[in-house]
């Protein structure tokens, strides 16, 4: 692959200082993601997976190191620039869903478009379509507390996709779901991958990482293994095409 990567990080470190104690959550990570890749990050609890994903998604800043995203050196960007990247180029899916409480599915999905300054009529049209795409046409007006975990996560995915981002980041998106909902959610990720979306997913579960093309293993704040998923081809080929 000779194309420039979508993102690359070099020697990224992250230290947390709590009083006297310093935790080295990341100890110098190098990492590249190309357009269209589907990557699973795995590793033991506390190995730095979430920290890495937060830095990749500009939800947190590294203590040191370089981060190029979409051709730009992001270490020099202002907070507003980063907000703009989060808004237009990134989509997040969290383990805890993180929907706005007491706010309808439709309004939750509209939120990134509101901050993008998109015309209100278009907001509603696109949000309805996005919810239909995750099979929630009948739940537009429901608040999060009226939705199942799987449904809430589908709303979150619709929200993550709404501004057509360059990169989708998901931190244990199936961690709070049962196996049936997990399969449904992973089916959506497979579809997105097939349509050319770039996806990074953090997971503990093999049946989730099996959907990815590449698996990156972390240990003690370092990447210690990168490999091609053996099952990916099999799953991809045995999925009915739409």
């Amino acid at each position, binding site marked *: 692959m000779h194309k420039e990567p979508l993102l690359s990080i070099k020697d990224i470190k992250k230290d947390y200082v709590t009083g006297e104690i310093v935790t080295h959550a990341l100890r110098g990570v190098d990492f590249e993601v190309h357009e269209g890749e589907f990557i699973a990050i795995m590793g033991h609890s506390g190995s730095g997976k979430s920290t890495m994903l937060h830095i990749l998604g500009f939800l947190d800043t590294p203590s040191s190191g370089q981060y190029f995203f979409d051709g730009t050196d992001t270490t020099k960007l202002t*907070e507003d620039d980063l907000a703009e990247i*989060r808004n237009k180029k990134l989509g997040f899916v969290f383990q805890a869903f993180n929907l706005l409480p007491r706010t309808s599915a439709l309004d939750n999905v509209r939120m990134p478009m509101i901050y993008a300054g998109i015309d209100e009529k278009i907001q509603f049209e696109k949000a309805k379509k996005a919810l239909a795409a995750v099979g929630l046409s009948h739940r537009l007006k429901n608040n999060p507390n009226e939705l199942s975990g799987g449904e809430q996560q589908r709303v979150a995915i619709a929200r993550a996709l709404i501004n057509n981002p360059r990169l989708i980041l998901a931190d244990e998106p199936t961690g709070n779901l049962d196996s049936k909902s997990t399969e449904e959610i992973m089916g959506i990720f497979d579809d997105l991958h097939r349509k050319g979306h770039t996806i990074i997913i953090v997971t503990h579960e093999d049946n989730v990482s099996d959907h990815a093309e590449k698996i990156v293993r972390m240990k003690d704040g370092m990447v210690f293994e990168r490999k091609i998923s053996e099952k990916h081809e099999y799953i991809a080929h045995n999925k009915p095409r739409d």
Partner: protein
Amino acid sequence: MRFDTNKKNTAKKRFNLGEFKLLLSLSLQALETNRLRTILTTIGIIIGIATIIIVLSAGRGLEKYIIDQVEAFGADTIEVEMKIPNVSDMEMMSAMMRGAEITTLKVEDFEALKELPNIGNYYAGILGQFKTVYRNNSKTAMIYATTAGLTEIDKQIKIGQGRFFNEKEEKSQAKIAVLGYDLKEELFGAENAIGKSIKINQVNFKVIGVTEKRGGIFYFNYDKMIFVPLKTAQKQLLGVDHVIYGFLQVKDLSKTSETVADITSIMRKRHSLPPDNPDKDDFRVTSMQEALEMMGVVTFGITLLVLAVAGISLVVGGVGIMNIMYLTVLERTREIGLRKALGAKNKIIERQFLLETIIITGLGGVAGIIFGSIVVVLIEWVSGSLGYSFGLTITLDAVLLAISAALLFGIAFGLYPARKASHLSPVEALRYE
């Protein structure tokens, strides 16, 4: 495709209607989705603001009431009243209750004092209580026996019908009377009283005037009195030749203290008292100017008290609002983290919270001012219909204080936490607990 960072920052606008609409819809949505919190916060502000309005108007009213009472006697007067020598005020009061009388103060004393260059007019008087009869109606009334100067010095006594008696009539012991407004109503009803004859303690008096309604001051209710010429009352009703007090009008207020000294020495001479022993005095001289200055101290004390009460009510209201806000800071901090993760810029978040605060404190403030004013008007109305007027007034400074307090609450409890939260990284805010 490169990320262009310069494009955005060049276009700086002062006011952006699109952005305002966005903020308004965000704020209204946030207020609507958190309806209970919105309502509780607004109620907290309403109560705090209304309390300030009520307490401050009550304080102002009380202050004004007290000053009015003193000024009713005329701010430019000096009072000379009889006093039992060698005793304290308390002892004198109880002595008088038991019937002790000092009969040394005479109207002639005032005639003499009037000759002082700084004294204009005077009036002197004595009070008594007698059965008063008109036809079949009878009433025990307070008789105010006074010289004719009364209405000239006490400007609050206004004649509604007829006229007050003059000096000549007073000196010639004319049997004429001026009725207080309420007493006239009680004796005559709607009937015209002027020219009619009434009996006071069996003696016939002709009614020549009726006062306008004035309302009570301290323990005095002028509306229930009968004003009778001093000489007439002394000879025909009371059988005495003294007065209990009198007021002298001062021409040049800047010389009041000298005049008080002059009066004191003249009185001592006239009553054959030692020139330099106040304990032996059978009279007391007080200038209303001094009294007003003393009242100034009292009303300043009242103002301080009122401010303290208003301050306490502010703190109480504030603590209530703070509790509600504090309970929601956790949720709101996470909300801010989420909004930032979805691409909200700090200034948009801050402005959304500012607008929410303005809406809540604005609504609460206006409602509080209206609610407080209604209570004030109600108190005035109820007390007015019971015959008292506190003169409660809603003043601009109370309203301004209330509004600034509301804004302060909003900023301290709504905006400040939001500002702090918006400067956390999205992850920190999302993890906040």
